[in-house]
């Protein structure tokens, strides 16, 4: 006996699952995130490190800062350019990047990241 019907149904289910990304995205217009800088950030030109580093590794930097500040009490950071920064999400980072929705969330939502920064820190109030 062949059970051809069952095999084909099985194949369709299997292929369907594996091809689901194609089916799911079909007809949807997706657009890459475009995080925006506030005028203040633009003016500053440089962050605590270069853009490439910040794009790929800001979460590591923030995680390290947190540990250093909370556990070791080390409050100051010296950038590669020799500039010293006060390690604080709210005081330092959010001072320039005060536009959480347009800056942080833009990529975080796209990548499905839910950083737990805001479990302790207060998100900045944004004016539209």
């Amino acid at each position, binding site marked *: 006996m*062949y059970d051809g019907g069952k095999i084909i149904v099985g194949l369709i289910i299997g292929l369907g699952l594996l091809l689901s990304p194609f089916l799911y*995205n079909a007809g949807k217009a997706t657009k890459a995130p475009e995080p925006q800088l506030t005028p203040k950030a633009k003016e500053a030109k440089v962050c605590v490190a270069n853009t490439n580093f910040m794009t790929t590794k800001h979460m590591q930097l923030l995680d390290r800062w947190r540990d250093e500040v909370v556990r070791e009490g080390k409050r100051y950071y010296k950038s590669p350019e020799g500039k010293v920064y006060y390690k604080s999400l709210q005081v330092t980072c959010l001072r320039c990047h005060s536009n959480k929705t347009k800056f942080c969330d833009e990529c975080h939502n796209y990548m499905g990241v839910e950083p737990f920064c805001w479990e302790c820190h207060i998100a900045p109030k944004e004016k539209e």
Partner: protein
Amino acid sequence: MNFIISILFSGIVVSVLVLIPWVGVAAFDLRFLFGVVVPYLAMAVFFIGMVARVIGWGRSPVPFRIPTTAGQQFSLPWIKYSKIESPKGNGGVIIRMLFEVLLFRSLFRNTRLEYRRLANGPKLDYEWEKWLWLAALMFHYSFLVIFLRHFRFFMEPIPGFVHILEKLDGFLQLGVLPVSGLNVPSVFLTDMLLMLALTYLFLRRIYIPQTRYISLPADYFPLFLILALGLTGILMRYFIRVDITAVKTLALGLFTFKPTVPEGIGVIFFIHLFLISMLIAYFPFSKLVHMAGVFLSPTRNLANNSRMKRHINPWDYPVKVHTYEEYEEEFRELMIQAGLPVEKQPEKVEEQSEETGEKE
């Protein structure tokens, strides 16, 4: 070919597979080739190959109903029968298959032979051995979860199940301690489990003399390939980070048939992508087809009801048999003398027949 040659050969092949995109992207900047062309080709090979493989199996019929019965058959009403291990109908078969596919039921039975020679003779024991089952389960489920977690790159908007998986997988919120400074907020358990399981499966293969003896390069190669795949993934997540929004843009481009290769994605991503491409392209031609094959196994997916329900053999053909008439023709007189009934009385009973009877 001994196991060292097999391991070396597989190891070299995987190393070359790592070098190809490395050189191709870093030295020759062939980003479109490795970011778009190769993945598409690999997917095409995978899907066409797998469909062809399954249809190929399907074209061969199952002429006989041959389940391996692993429990009491259904017989008398007062005898408790094993509904899953010796199913009498489709319901039981489905549950049996689910146990097999989702929980590796048969592998769970595994034992280990302990052979000793004592003063009064040999002593055989069958020891507890669930490590293979555990490692296999760990490997397959980790791989599945990791694959599904990757759907955050494949789909926009990201479906809910991906978030749930990520939460569960990263619930320990571990850093990669003690390498301080390189940590991310949460380490995924499956990343570690996958590597652990793969390492165990490899070591087991060379440590146990029997598996070492039966192993082919085709057994080491997928292990090494997936190890390399996992390693590049782990490097990318925890150490050599790349711009993942750009990666997602590339992935979405592939899955919407609008391929693009954004600027600034690190080489390691192309190595990772090339390795997964090789893995899926290799799939239909290798032992990895067990993923589909397990569903078609006639010793598992048939009910133990052969005496209740007739199974049809599509290529059945008439065969030459020795009929009763031919049999009686040869032995008629002997049968009559022995007082056995016959269909046809002989025309004349001959006295000599006794002799022929004594000959045998």
